């Protein structure tokens, strides 16, 4: 089992902000990302689940595998936005099988 250690970055963000986050990933030279849908949720500002027609409160989960170095770069770039944009950004360790290219 040939694996490399990488970071998994997950960012929970408002749908309208996702393109900006993807752009930030690209600037940090993170070559790939995926976006997962989120159905509903709740937090300090109440719960959402039916505002989806307006789209303004819908969240999406941006999911990217990156090297430690690139992910640190990305976090530094995006950190100022975290509170003003209500982003939840988590990082965890992950083994990528045959993952030299990520």
């Amino acid at each position: 089992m040939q694996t490399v250690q990488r970071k998994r970055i997950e960012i929970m963000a408002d749908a309208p902000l996702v393109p900006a986050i993807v752009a930030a990933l690209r600037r940090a030279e993170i070559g790939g990302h995926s976006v997962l849908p989120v159905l509903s949720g709740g937090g300090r500002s109440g719960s959402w689940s039916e505002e989806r027609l307006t789209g303004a409160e819908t969240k999406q989960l941006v999911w990217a595998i990156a090297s430690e170095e690139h992910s640190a770069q990305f976090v530094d770039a995006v950190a100022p936005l975290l509170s003003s944009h209500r982003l939840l950004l988590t990082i965890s360790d992950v083994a990528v099988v045959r993952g030299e290219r990520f």
Partner: protein
Amino acid sequence: MIIDTLTSPIILFFVLGMLAGFARSDLSIPEAVAKGLAIYLMAAIGLKGGVSVAENGFTPDLGTAAAVGIALSFLLPLPAFYLLRGFGRLDQVNAGAVAAHYGSVSLVTYITAIELLKGSGLVAPGFMAAVLALMETPAIITGLALARRGRAQQATEPGSGLLHEVFLNGSVVLLIGSFLIGLVAGKENFAPISPVFEAGYRGVLCLFLLDMGLLASRRLAGTRALTLRLGSLAVLLPLVNGSIGVALGTAFGLEVATAATLGILAASASYIAVPAAMRLALPEADPGIYLSMSLGITFPFNVIIGIPLFASLATLLG
């Protein structure tokens, strides 16, 4: 006309949605279907508007209504902003964001109004669909300027995305696009597609308003951000804006139905295009405030009370 309103299935489905939402029933229309219905409705009103202009030609009224509509969208956020800051006690950013919503317009309020007015003999001209599209965005510019006044423009990313969002947002493109298609195609080419876009229209609107009722009541029930002052403003602002709209329309010599529709557009508050733009441009503004006000209070108020009210006002002044 209020009694007419209350036996119309369109309004009754809206009321059913409101009641089901308040009772926390799990009734819901899938998001994808609701979006599909919205696209259908936008294409239909655009097409029908274009076809009617192709029939009747460009009248001076069209130009007048467009100009007055754009001016209203640019200017209505101003008094709204001061009311929101003063009486509503909002900070600058949130007041700007909410003001943008009230300057802009609500598609569904417009569609419902057209149907209800028709029921009482007031036929709004088809070109009002184009006026609707033109009124969507100017308020966003004013609202953002108010929210950011005196502050250095922040250098975060979304900037360029915003202009794009504002001028090429889906609903504007679809409305203007179908309007032009209707204009080019004319009545004859419209005939084969009219079973879908004409005959199906009112039935689809029922289902869509059922969903809007659910959304409005859930938004209201789930809010934590709404004060009594803001709730009152969500009724006061449409009254003020709508009266200004009707009065201006009448003063500029528009027909009764046109002036009534313009008033209803002025009274309506956006809850689709503007929230998405605000989330991008003013992420620090609280969506709980602007959505609760525009979708939770102003929208039902307009559908049930505002539409007949401004129709009567226009008839009175006209």
